[in-house]
């Protein structure tokens, strides 16, 4: 009789513990549902201003012969890291832009407003892709959200689909803003989010201005209102900064600093940018460490370079097809892309 009672108590205790765990799981599911799955739309009054309305053409001189460059920097690449080869330079005999004609090849696009050259490099066990971009007018340098809406949570879409919808010539994934509730989001001249994260989670912010320049800030000192008045056109909150004012960063307190697939936006001079995607987690390419990536971007000749979301998010598109080899099928919440102006 005592044994039966003891057994009953034991079963009751097990059932009780099991119930508590199940209920805890249910609560966590509900929290995850609201945190991750159900998108939270932001009201349109978050769009504080629009700098995209007036976009003067950028005046380019003769295309520099050595940009993007290689091996011209003062500090050599680490000996144990991959050795990099130069990225393509626009043919000096031709002008940077055409008078209106569109010249397309398998790896390039040239028109009155855009000049893009795509190249793939294989160095040891690392494959990386460089899209060298000149834009005469910053209206060609755009960003887009998945499903055309700003929403956190599961607002994602395949990069190819967004790229097709926007008539992008080239595209790269953005900072996957939807995965976070904080951080600055300025897109195409509109401020969508200006929520500062906790001090421990402060990140670097990259800003592209409507005069074709790019700067990198620390989130602690960043003033979105001030930068919007200065003409901030795009801003990403991810990072870290790889090259700042021509200096490759060497210290990365980041959990993802190991060899991984990478996406980077680089800046040479006003209107001259590059998108870089490094293949990783695959047999043909293991990816790059942040420190090697910073060296690569500096060796390409970038004055500023900023790390976008990598890993399975890292994807690069040219002519609505993958130009890089993504390591996973993860959809993206935003893209950075170059389009043309048709008059």
């Amino acid at each position, binding site marked *: 009789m005592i044994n039966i009672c003891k057994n009953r108590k034991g079963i009751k205790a097990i059932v009780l513990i099991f119930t*508590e*765990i199940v*209920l*805890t799981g249910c*609560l966590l599911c509900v*929290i995850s549902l609201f945190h991750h799955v159900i998108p939270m739309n932001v009201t349109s009054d978050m769009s504080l201003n629009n700098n995209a309305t007036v976009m003067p053409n950028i005046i380019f001189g003769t295309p520099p012969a050595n940009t993007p460059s290689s091996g011209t920097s003062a500090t050599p690449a680490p000996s144990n890291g991959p050795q990099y080869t130069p990225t393509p330079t626009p043919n000096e005999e031709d002008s940077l832009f055409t008078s209106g004609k569109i010249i397309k090849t398998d790896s390039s696009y040239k028109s009155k407003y855009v000049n893009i050259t795509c190249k793939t490099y294989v160095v040891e066990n690392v494959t990386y892709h460089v899209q060298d971009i000149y834009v005469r007018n910053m209206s060609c340098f755009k960003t887009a959200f998945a499903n055309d809406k700003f929403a956190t949570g599961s607002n994602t879409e395949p990069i190819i689909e967004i790229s097709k919808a926007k008539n992008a010539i080239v595209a790269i994934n953005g900072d996957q803003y939807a995965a976070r509730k*904080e951080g600055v989001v300025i897109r195409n001249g509109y401020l969508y989010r200006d929520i500062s994260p906790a001090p421990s*989670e402060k990140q670097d912010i990259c800003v592209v201005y409507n005069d074709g320049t790019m700067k990198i800030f620390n989130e602690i000192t960043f003033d979105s209102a001030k930068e919007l008045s200065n003409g901030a056109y795009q801003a990403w909150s991810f990072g870290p900064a790889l090259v700042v004012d021509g200096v490759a960063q060497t210290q990365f307190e980041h959990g993802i600093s190991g060899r991984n697939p990478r996406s980077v936006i680089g800046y040479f001079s006003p209107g001259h940018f590059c998108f870089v995607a490094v293949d990783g987690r695959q047999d043909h390419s293991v990816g790059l460490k942040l420190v090697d990536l910073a060296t690569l971007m500096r060796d390409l000749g970038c004055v500023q370079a900023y790390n976008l979301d990598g890993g399975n998010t890292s994807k690069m598109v040219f002519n609505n097809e993958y130009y890089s080899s993504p390591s996973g099928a993860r959809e993206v919440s935003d893209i950075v892309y170059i389009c043309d102006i048709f008059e």
Partner: protein
Amino acid sequence: MKSKRANTIIKYLLKILPHVSIITSLAYVVLFIIDRVNPAMNFIGFAMTKVVILVLAICSTVTSALIIYLLEFKNRK
């Protein structure tokens, strides 16, 4: 009559609130660990997590108050 009803309410509260405390505590521990692993997701700063902490705080306070009441006043009678 009033005292009987109050006793019944206290009994029910003491039956339910500890379970709610355990569930919210476990949920918070899990969210805390996830947040340490992937700080970018910011589970701890999420509004619903703050509600979980609030519920935990209320449950703990009421449970503690009821236990103190029972131990210090009821049982002495």
